[in-house]
Every structure is written in C-alpha cells, then in structure tokens.
C-alpha cells in the first residue's frame, strides 16, 4: 500500500530538550494511534507532520508533497486536517461561521459549494442543531466537535488529531470515538492519545513514543502480546511487579516478571504499553 505519510530522520530540539530524535515512520490509510507519556514528543511529532512547526533535521512527505518548499507545503496543507491539542476559536462566531471561516482559509472560495460543505461537516459531527449558536455558549464537548468539523472541512486525505478526547465525559468520548472511526474510513488518521482503550478500539496500528523516539510500531494486538505471560493475579501486591494494583474483587493485578506458578491473566493493550515504556526507560537509563 502506498504510504500517505513517509518521514525519515525527523529531529527537533526545544532549548536543551530533544523533543524528536531521529523519528522515521510510514503511515497508510486507517487510524494509527500514537501513545506515549507526557513529554514523549507526541504533540511535537504531530505538529511537525501537520507543518505547524518545521523540524530541525529530517524530511517527510504527506500525500506525495514535500513541505520543504513553499509550494509543496501549500499543496500538503490542501490535503490536511489538523485538530490541535488546545483548539482556539473566535468565541463570538457561531459554529457555522467559524467552520466557514476555516473553509475560506482552506481556499474554498465558491460560497454556495462552501456552505454546502460546512453544513455537511457540521452534520457529520452532529452539530447541525446548534450551528447558529455562538461558540462561547457551547459546551466543551461541542467546541471539540466544532474543531473536528473545521479539521474535516475540505475532505482532507490526512487527518491529524491531538488528544481529541481530553476533558470529555464518557458519553462524549464514545461519540467522538464513533466520529474518529468514521473519519478513518478512506483516509489516513494519526491520533495522539493517552487513552489506551481508544487505541484498542479504533486503531489498526499503534506507535508508542518515549524520549522523542518511536519505541514500538505494530498492531494493537502485537502491543498487547508483549504482555503475554507477564500479567498475573495475587492476594498481595507482588514487590517484583513493575506495576500492581488492587482490583474490585480484592485481588492484585500485577504486571512485570511473574514468579513461578503465578496465576496468569489475559493481558490488555495497556499492560503491553506499560511494559514497552518500562523497556524504553531502561534503555534511556542505560
């Protein structure tokens, strides 16, 4: 399959902090999850791929366009939708006016076609009813959907979503999950999140970042499999465990290197993620 995004050797430094360290990746159609702790470089990677900030070193193409030249960057942006971690709005605009404003900035200059497109994306994110309401009067979840509608306007081939479900209640998160799954049909979506269950349910592929590097690249099942035979239950917290907590049933769920004869449990993607990060920490410490 032809990759939508192809990047090699991306590096970027903020002061003394190496935010990205020689990152290479290829993304194809579908939803790819990006997991990692705070400070791992997820937002920086997304911002670089979305051309919001240039990398210090390395190169990449999106939909065949290289942003190293102004014309290439402009072409790339024509096929891009970007939902930043903290989207901002003109609060006095209505949802329709704001998405229309973004549509103009995306060079949709035919007013009739543009308004039809704005209504389409607002319908898609379930905001048709409130499209005439001022953004400052919308709830946090609705604002997030306005930002998603703005990202979707123009039918981009590459969608970059930076923690879109942060601050949403469980119902809103489930709704958003549905929207992201729909958005992933026929296009490439890169989804940064702290929610491992979002990745487990939405993504065909997952990347784990730590210390500015990609530590894992595979399917959610492969990440989960990393924890196979390394999750067990016990009546006491096992001091040998990398992580352990008391569950609702009163027994402890431990993740790490189980003792002989341990009562092994089915691992989750989160267990695989924790063990991958643990390996990354050990590598950094070494």
């Amino acid at each position, binding site marked *: 399959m032809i990759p939508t995004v192809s990047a090699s050797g991306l590096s970027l430094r903020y002061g003394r902090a190496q935010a990205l360290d020689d990152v290479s990746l290829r993304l194809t159609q579908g939803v790819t999850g990006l997991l990692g702790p705070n400070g791992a470089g997820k937002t*920086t990677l997304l911002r670089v791929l979305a051309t919001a900030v240039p990398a210090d070193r390395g190169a990449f193409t999106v939909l065949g366009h290289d942003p190293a030249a102004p014309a290439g960057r402009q072409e790339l942006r024509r096929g891009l939708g970007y939902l930043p971690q903290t989207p901002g709005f003109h609060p006095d605009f209505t949802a329709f006016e704001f998405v229309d404003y973004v549509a103009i900035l995306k060079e949709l*200059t035919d007013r009739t076609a543009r308004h039809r497109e704005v209504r389409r994306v607002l319908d898609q994110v379930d905001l048709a009813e409130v499209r005439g309401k001022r953004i400052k009067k919308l709830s946090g979840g609705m604002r997030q959907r306005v930002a998603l509608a703005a990202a979707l306007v123009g039918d981009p081939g590459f969608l970059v979503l930076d923690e879109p479900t942060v601050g949403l209640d469980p119902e809103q998160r489930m709704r958003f999950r549905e929207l992201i799954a729909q958005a992933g049909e026929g296009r490439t979506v890169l989804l940064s999140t702290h929610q491992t269950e979002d990745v487990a349910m939405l993504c065909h592929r997952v990347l784990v970042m730590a210390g500015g590097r990609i530590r894992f690249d595979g399917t959610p099942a492969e990440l989960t499999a990393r924890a196979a035979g390394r999750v067990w239950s016990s009546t006491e917290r096992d001091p040998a465990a990398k992580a352990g907590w008391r569950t609702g049933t009163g027994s402890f769920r431990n993740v790490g290197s189980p003792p002989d004869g341990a009562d092994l449990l089915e691992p989750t993607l989160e267990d695989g993620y924790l063990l991958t990060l643990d390996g990354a920490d050990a590598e950094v410490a070494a």
Partner: protein
Amino acid sequence: MRVSGQVRVGGQVRVGGQVRVARELLLPAGRALPWRSPAAGAGLGLLILAVPRLTDTEPAPWLALVLLRCAILAHAVGLAFLMDDPARHTTATVPTRRALRTAVRLALITPVTALWWTAALLLVPSHIRPPTGDLTLEAAAVCVLALAAGAAAVRLTDAPAPGVSVAAALLFTAVVAPLLLPDQWALFVPPGDQRWGVAHERWAGVLAGAVVLWGICLPEPLRRGPGALRLRSPCGTSDPSRT
C-alpha cells in the same frame, strides 16, 4: 464517513486563487479582528489631544508636539494587539499563507488608522501644529514597529495572543528610549531644534527597519535556523498530565 452525494471539493472549488480568498476573508477577518484594543488606543489618543480643547486652553507648540506623540504611542499600543488570534492553533495549518491573512487585517485597519490620524492632526490648531509630514513619518514608524513586533512575537512564540507582551514592550521602549538614546541618535526633538531634519532621517531608518523586521517575520519558517527561539514545547512537554 463519506456522506452520499457529498460535495467533492477537490479542484473545482479550490480554483479561487489568493484574490478570491482575500475577498471572501474580508468579512470574517473583520469580525475576527480584536477591534477593542485598537479602538481603545485610538480613543485614548484622541482624548489626550482633546484635553486642551475640553479645558479651553491652547497648549504651547512644544506641548502640542508632546501630546501628539503621546497620542501616536496610545494608538500604536492598541495596534500591538492586532496580531492576536485566539484561533491561531486551529488555523495553523491552512493553505492560505500568513502573509495574505495579515494583509487582509492590514487592509481593514489601514483606512481606519488614516482617518484617526487625520482627526488627531485636526484636533491640534494649525498654527501650533508641528510639521505634518515629519510627524506622519514618526506615526508611521511607531505604528509599523508595533505591528512588526506583533509579527515577531507570532513568529517566535506559540502564544495565540501576544498583544499584552508586545504592548508592554512598546510602552517600555517609548519611556526608556528618550532617556537612554545618546544625543547623536536623538529621535524625540522639538521642531525648532537644528537636529529636527536629521532626527527624521533616523525616523525613516526606524520605519525601514520595522518594515524589514516585519518582512522577515511574516512568512512561516520552512526550516528552523540555528537561532530558533522556540525554547519551550508548545503543549505536551510543558503541561501537566491532562488525562
């Protein structure tokens, strides 16, 4: 999800070109502009100039000049907020170039500023009014400097609203510059002073420098140079966990 019968907005709709984008942008950009700050600055400037008329006194020529310079500064401080854009991050990666978006903002604010300056000059009686051309040069230099500083703040930081910092820096510079500038670099001289002509050559230099700074800061960087000043990560690394 592809809605049946949806608009395919590839080639046909995007043929507009920059002029059509600019035309469509005028109305929403006008609504998105932070009008309150420039309006407050302009209002304060006019109020400063109106004080002698309101108190029915005629200021001395030197005081008229000081009042005009204070009015220019007040207006420029207001203009420092012109680059504020709360939607900056949401619209960071659109294909319309930053230069065009700034040009639309300028196209909206320039006629208003020109009207304001005319009104400001008219508030000063003609027989005590300093040379209009030279003072217009001063006003242009200070206003463009404010806008260039705003553009630099946008280029070098991730703040969506750097106006407060830019305005504070401008005020600080305006207070400190007359005190610290050596005589041979004096900018703030009275009309009768023999250095008036030379000072206005310097003002022309300030204007040219501000235009160059603005020109450098306007385009988005394709590569980060060795002097890149983004010292902090924009979001994730500097914030506590948001989960």
